[in-house]
């Protein structure tokens, strides 16, 4: 029963990792940009949530109404103002620039919020649980998993059933020809980043309710996001959810064996899958 519990908890944790990863996957899919600052943007969203909740007394989940549009705006401005200039045939400039951005965000957060660990106070939601067949399921992890499914379904639907999604795919396929069709790729990339950071905002708030956070934890979230994307296969959002679940389960099982093994077990699962299936489990796009 304890093992079953570990697997179930790991699966639900995977929902959070999938949310970390969805934004990364989206950005890479549309513009081949690897965003090293993604983890720090998640943490930034958590801090924005902290500011909103302390200033207004709102529940953190209600604060999403403000934090999601705020992060989307930041995303659009960041893409139009900075990241578009780095995109081209060379993949190095965006890596370097987003790495620099990561350092700037971390230090900016440190300056404004200090290094003290913070949490978002979600009241009863943090501890509420339901017992299903002898396993206690936390309402928050269940909610997180449900939100992850809804977000991925929503992104998938946007990609394949809307004019915006068509534009994303067209620009991803061939930027020049898309431009000939009247699509301004700089604007489309801005919208993609806005959407990605909107998802990041959700991830950041859920992270902040679940655990304490400080300005330095972005790197770790980035790694988990990356691993979920790579395990699932590039360009496949449902694969990303599966990747997140595999990572989450590996971590909780590792922790069950020895609490010190939690993170290591996740990395080992990642390496094993990479060794067996270098393109991930369900790849859609190559390299």
């Amino acid at each position: 029963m304890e093992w079953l519990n570990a697997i179930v908890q790991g699966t639900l944790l995977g929902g959070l990792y999938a949310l970390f990863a969805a934004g990364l996957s989206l950005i890479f899919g549309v513009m081949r940009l690897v965003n090293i600052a993604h983890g720090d943007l998640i943490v930034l969203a958590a801090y924005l949530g902290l500011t909103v909740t302390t200033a207004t007394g709102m529940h953190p989940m209600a604060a999403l109404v403000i934090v999601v549009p705020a992060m989307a705006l930041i995303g659009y401005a960041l893409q139009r103002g900075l990241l578009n200039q780095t995109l081209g045939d060379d993949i190095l400039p965006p890596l370097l620039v987003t790495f620099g951005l990561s350092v700037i965000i971390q230090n900016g957060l440190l300056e404004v919020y200090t290094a003290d660990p913070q949490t978002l106070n979600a009241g009863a939601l943090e501890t509420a649980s339901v017992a299903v067949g002898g396993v206690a399921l936390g309402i928050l992890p269940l909610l997180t998993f449900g939100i992850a499914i809804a977000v991925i379904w929503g992104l998938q639907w946007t990609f394949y059933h809307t004019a915006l999604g068509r534009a994303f795919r067209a620009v991803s396929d061939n930027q020049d020809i898309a431009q000939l069709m009247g699509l301004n790729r700089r604007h489309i990339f801005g919208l993609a980043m806005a959407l990605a950071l909107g998802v990041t905002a959700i991830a950041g708030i859920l992270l902040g309710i679940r655990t304490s956070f400080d300005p330095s934890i972005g790197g770790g979230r980035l790694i988990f996001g990356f691993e979920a994307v790579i395990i699932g296969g590039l360009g496949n959002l449902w694969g990303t959810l599966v990747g997140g679940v595999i990572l989450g389960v590996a971590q909780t099982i590792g922790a069950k064996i020895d609490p010190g093994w939690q993170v290591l077990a996740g990395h080992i699962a990642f390496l094993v899958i990479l060794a067996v299936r270098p393109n991930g489990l369900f790849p859609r796009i190559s390299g």
Partner: protein
Amino acid sequence: MPDPILQTRGLNSFYGDFQALYDVELDVGEGEVLAIIGANGAGKTTLMRSITGLLTNGPGQIHYRGQDVSRLRADEVAELGLAMVPEGRQLFPSLSVKENLMIGAQVGRKGPWDLKAVYDLFPILEERKDQASTSLSGGQQQMVAIGRALMANPDLILFDEVSLGLAPIIIKDIYEALPGIIGEGMSAIIVEQDITKALSVSSRVYCLQEGRVSLESASDTVSREDISRAYFGIE
């Protein structure tokens, strides 16, 4: 000649330090079909890329309906009513046939061309509308590329090497369909290696040679000798 819809004046185009076009002067009249011929590497595709805004040009070098469009981005040029059927078709592989056509309408210009009109012109595309564009034959892909450009309801449409890589029978079909396509008062530039085809559908012809205009003539009166001289540069 009727008022020009497109004019280039002293057009010089570069790929980095390499100059591909030298002082190209070209006029396309309203409703006119213009052919551009020339050997490989003569600068035909570069000219198309300059006109559509995919290459950056110097100021004042390209005018569209009297407006200087030389510095506009490709999407801004497209909104003014200029569409291109690119060389090698270049459909979007992750979009279905129907989606490829719909993205052509992205510029939001009103006119006779919509999905139904394109399906009427190429009925096979309606049958294949939900298939991946990559699953079609070369000729069908060319139909999608033409349909995609028409969906923008352009005033000027550029055909870049539409017959390249297609079977002769398909090329014949496409050229037979062209007058019907261009008939609606649209102007067109047809870039073509097949000189006979190019002359048969156009009213005037320009020949490019090493980035320069080497011949400008009416299509029905131009002689073979003039063309081979302009084409190969043999005196």
